[in-house]
């Protein structure tokens, strides 16, 4: 039984409604160290809402989320301790517009006393190098393309040395020619052993990078499995229909 690596996140019977609309219905999921999980599914099926819960940007109605075995909403455990360890990359990049690239990356580690200023600066420069944007330290977000902004956003999330990284449709707001540069960075991260959950519409990317694929539909995980199982041998009718439209 213990052949599997450590569980980092356990989701138990998670439910959430917005008004009368139930977006998540009793979802359960275990995320293990080193997992790269791709979440696919039609628009409005609850994919984004699900991973926003993992970053405590939404409050569930029912169910539990355990991070390293601890309930993240348990009293006394401050949300910031969870967020410091779980990074998130947004569809719209959400860079801080009033700060330079370097300061965007350094802000959280320095303000939260994770690193000294010089440590954070060294780390930021290393990350910029990794995402291929050395030399852009003093640019402001508005001076960058969408693809560049998203690479900075990834570097910003990485600066906190998170245990898990969440991606909420990281390439959906990008021009087609910029999608590749962002996906390459995410792929590099996956290869380095980072635990990640990625909501995406890029099926080829999901196929090549994920070790597990979840198909969300109407607020539940309709089917899950390895990329081969999901893409080459789908069982659920809804999934078959979804894949046929996408391809």
């Amino acid at each position, binding site marked *: 039984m213990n052949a599997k690596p450590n569980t980092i996140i356990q989701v138990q019977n998670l439910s959430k409604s917005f008004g009368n609309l139930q977006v998540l219905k009793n979802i359960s999921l275990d995320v293990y160290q080193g997992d790269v999980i791709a979440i696919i599914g039609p628009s409005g099926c609850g994919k984004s809402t699900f991973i926003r819960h993992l970053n405590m940007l939404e409050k569930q109605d029912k169910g539990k989320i355990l991070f390293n075995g601890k309930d993240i909403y348990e009293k006394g455990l401050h949300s910031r301790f969870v*967020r*410091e360890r779980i*990074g998130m990359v*947004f569809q*719209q990049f959400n860079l801080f517009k009033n700060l330079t690239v370097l300061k965007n990356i350094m*802000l959280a580690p320095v303000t939260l006393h994770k690193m000294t200023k010089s440590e954070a600066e060294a780390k930021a420069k290393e990350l910029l190098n990794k995402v291929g944007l050395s030399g852009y330290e003093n640019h402001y977000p508005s001076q960058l393309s969408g693809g560049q902004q998203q690479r900075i*956003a990834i570097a910003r999330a990485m600066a906190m040395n998170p245990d898990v990284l969440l991606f909420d449709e990281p390439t959906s707001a990008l021009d087609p020619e910029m999608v590749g540069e962002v996906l390459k960075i995410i792929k590099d991260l996956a290869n380095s052993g980072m635990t990640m959950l990625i909501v995406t519409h890029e099926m080829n990317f999901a196929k090549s990078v994920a070790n597990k694929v979840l198909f969300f539909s109407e607020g539940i995980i309709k089917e899950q499995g390895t990329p081969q199982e999901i893409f080459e041998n789908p069982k659920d009718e809804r999934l078959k229909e979804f894949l046929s439209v996408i391809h």
Partner: protein
Amino acid sequence: MFKKIPTWAILFFSFAFILGCNDNAIPENKVFAVKDLAHKKVGVQIGNTADIYASDFGGDTAKIQVERYSKLTDAIQALSQGKIDAVLCDDQPAKAFLRQNQTLKILDEVFVEETYAGVIAKNNTALLDTVNMALKSLKNSGTYDSIFNTYINRNSDFHYTQKVKSENKLILSTNAQFPPYEFHSANGIEGIDIEIARYIADYMNRSLEIQDIEFDAIINSVNSGKADIGLAGFTITEERKKSILFTTPYAESKIVVIVRDNNKISKTESIGELLHKNFIKEARWKFIVEGLGNTLIISFFAAFLGICIGIGVSFVRFAHETMGGMKFLNTICKIYLAIIRGTPVLVQLLIIYYIVFSSVNVNKILVAVIAFGINSGAYVSEILRSGFKAIDPGQIEAGRSLGLRFRHILSHIAFPQAFKTSLPSMTNEFITLIKETSICGYIGITDLTRGGDIIRSLTYEAMLPLLAVAVIYFILVAGLSSCVARLEKRLKKNER
């Protein structure tokens, strides 16, 4: 475009100046006796007994159209410009005005006769007794006659100077626009009432402090304890007796009718003469300088206080809107905003002076700073709030997802951006603030506007003092605008 603005302003002010110099088409006088006042436009001072008499005049068939002015000087100016047909006022001030203004005359027929007395708070009978004894001693010692010879008969040069110097003060409320009873001169406020007050103060072994406020605010200031005694040519009336105590009468007066004199055509003064009369003579420019100083002090500190309050309130509201919580504080802020934005700033100023600080002797400039600061804070907070609203929620979420606490997000991300977007509206608010301080005269502060008013009350000349005041306000506002424009340019460097 920006460089052209001063040019346009100069054109505008010169145009106003030319219009001001051109005083033709003044209608002929048609009032020759008291009965002619029926259906005429007649100016009075608000709160003066002439107002009451004029309103009662003529029954329903021959009513007077009463025009009320807060200063007698304004009524006299309106009369000489032909805006009204006559002015009703006490005979001594009327004579004083006519010495300056040669184109007016007093009708021989007297409108009504009356007596003057001082006013003291309704409940303060002890002070009333003391003051009455002082007035008695004033008459018995012959000082009274000497004062009246100086001011009314103009055949002596006696002035009663105060002898007692004491920490203990007698505070006099008056309205120094009523010569010869009280008026501004190069030596400060002077007049019959002032010298009588000095005598009373000496008699009580106190030093005299003078408060120069609007005439209709004097009774209030005495009753609220802001002042001990009011001397401003008050006529005893039944109505006033209900709210105030009157001392024994110390002067008699007649209400007379002032009209334009058809035989005397106004002589035009040269610009040089006008400038000399309004600014150089008796160093009258000092009123403007003193007023400008107070306007600057009040505007600056009120703006500072307004920014502090505005930032605090907008933080609470922003926190409540993004995170929930702070419910109680948010409700308090909302009540504050509703009250401040729902009432005129003048009313707020008066409430703070007469009600909030009624029992404390507090510096009036400080009162104005507090009143305008609290007022401005409400507008600044709403301006900042709209700045906060303009920030896309994604940035706030990104901050939270990194583990940043709300105060970090506020200080590093949200506030700098909100401040920048709010800057143009904020400038607008401070421009308004500078101009709004022109109501400080209501609580007796000599601000820029009031400084110009004092000169007007001395020279009976409207154009130059008003234009000078307008030009100075304009320069202040233009200076502020260009400073902010520079700041905005610097902040813009953060972006493409």
